[in-house]
């Protein structure tokens, strides 16, 4: 079967998609030769820069959130593959506005390897950079083994919080502290019901029986906690939410950010229905949904499924979430 995707030469996938993205959002971002997606209008001098890196094929993904109030630079890699350390180093230098740079890295093997090398180089060059690793996938392992947990869609609210803090002129240590606090207070779980096609190889990324779903699925089709029979929207929402609440030890009176992130082919219709149930259950438990987002932010090609993300918020974090920002895929007035 021919791959049913609108692409040209698979070798040019990333350069072509970045070219289209740059033409589309010329007012907000530009793309450099080395695959950096950069704010069209650089941040003011004296403010902390925020940089991230990640593979392509998850659009809009990280690069969708470059702009005022969120990221300064996102370094895009090939399909599902981290970019190289040299480009990341270049990004750290470019994002330096005299107040240091926060480097946010999602816990995936290739990303971490590239980031560690980048940090070594940055240290050698005497750059003022702090690294923040996100690892919130509760399917990877217990909270006591963070290195087993993958970085999922929690990076997006994290970018929003640290981006708003940086834009507000906070110091690198303060920005890092806010990001770190959110990182330690978030949890994400993914479910998949159909596979996706790897756009470069044309192959299915994994297999799932016609009546099964897999909870704990990773961001590239990596296996999760095992297959179960398909469940209704409400049952799926309840099961996943229960696991997240337990992991994060959420208590009545807490306030949460809730995100339902579609992975590709699952419709907004379904995501709204899931969100509805999550909101109902949390309200019943006396937990406040202070902030929320339902969107396709971090996709896995046309995989059907979603990520459910929760994060415990301080009042300060609520304000940072609501602060204005202007990026291609999130604008707050």
């Amino acid at each position, binding site marked *: 079967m021919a791959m049913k995707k609108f692409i040209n030469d698979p070798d040019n996938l990333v350069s072509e998609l970045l070219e289209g993205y740059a033409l589309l959002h010329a007012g907000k971002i530009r793309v450099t030769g*080395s*695959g950096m997606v950069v704010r069209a209008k650089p941040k003011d001098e004296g403010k902390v820069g925020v940089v991230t890196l990640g*593979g392509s094929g998850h659009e809009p993904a990280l690069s969708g959130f470059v702009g005022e109030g969120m990221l300064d630079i996102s370094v895009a*890699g*090939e*399909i*599902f*593959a*981290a*970019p*190289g*350390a*040299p*480009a990341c180093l270049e990004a750290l230098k470019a994002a330096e506005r005299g107040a240091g740079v926060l480097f946010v890295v999602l816990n995936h*093997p*290739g990303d971490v*390897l*590239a980031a*560690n*090398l980048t940090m070594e180089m940055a240290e050698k060059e005497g750059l003022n950079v702090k690294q923040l690793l996100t690892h919130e996938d509760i399917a990877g392992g217990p909270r006591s083994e963070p290195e087993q947990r993958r970085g999922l869609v929690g990076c997006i609210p994290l970018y929003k919080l640290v981006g708003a803090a940086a834009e507000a002129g906070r110091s690198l240590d303060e920005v890092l502290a806010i990001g770190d606090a959110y990182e330690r207070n978030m949890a994400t779980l993914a479910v998949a019901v159909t596979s996706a096609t*790897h756009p*470069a*190889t044309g*192959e299915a*990324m994994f297999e799932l029986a016609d009546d099964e779903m897999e909870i704990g699925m*990773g961001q*590239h*089709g*990596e*296996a*999760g906690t095992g297959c179960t029979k398909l469940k209704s929207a409400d049952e799926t929402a309840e099961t996943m939410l229960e696991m997240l609440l337990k992991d994060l030890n959420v208590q009545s009176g807490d306030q949460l950010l809730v995100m339902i992130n579609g992975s590709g082919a699952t419709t907004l219709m379904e995501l709204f229905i899931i969100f509805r149930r999550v909101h109902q259950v949390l309200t019943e438990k006396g937990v406040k949904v202070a902030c929320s987002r339902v969107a396709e932010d971090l996709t896995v090609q046309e995989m059907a499924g979603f990520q459910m993300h929760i994060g415990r918020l301080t009042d300060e974090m609520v304000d940072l979430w609501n602060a204005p920002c202007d990026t291609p895929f999130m604008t707050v007035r």
Partner: protein
Amino acid sequence: MAETIGYDEMVRMLRGAAEKVTTQHEMLSKLDAAIGDGDHGTAMRRAMVCLVKAVADNRSRDLASVLNDVGWAILSAGGGSTGPLFGTFFMGMGEAAAERATLDAAALAEAFEAALAAVRKQTKAEPGDKTMIDALVPAVEGLRAAVEEGLDPAEALERAADAAQQGAASTKDMLARFGKAKNLGRRTLGTPDPGATSVSLIFRGFADGLAAGGT
């Protein structure tokens, strides 16, 4: 002729590695499709294109310089786990070769040991974890042993290639504990590790490239 490795010999080795890997990239992707995400061949092909270009662009006739450029080019290509690890490998070799016009057998062994050390600084993977380490370690140790036995670089590289090949084959029965394969657990049994297979191809390419003669 193969008593020492100078600039030209190193270039032959590098090109030999690129040729070997490039012709086998589909096989590498197939291995990765079985126990990872299916892109290892693509990543290695990209890395080898960068390697060949870096070699062609480097006019220094300086050993360390060409190795450094190759390492940096592979790092720059990105490419999941492959780029950082193989890039570091060549940069580690380059650092060890600094200020040397040629490498004799002992110096070659040292350079490979430095390359291995650089890679191991980047990863906690140990032999037995089903990664490229399972081919790299025996390759470098085999080369060192051959050098101790008094073999010349060409012969030592053949030994290293054989050891790497065995190491790669041995990963077939291992359980992956690193990289994307880790999540597949017992499903990784029965397939050799793609990264280890690449290492074996690279060492075979080194040996073949050097043996092929030329300038």
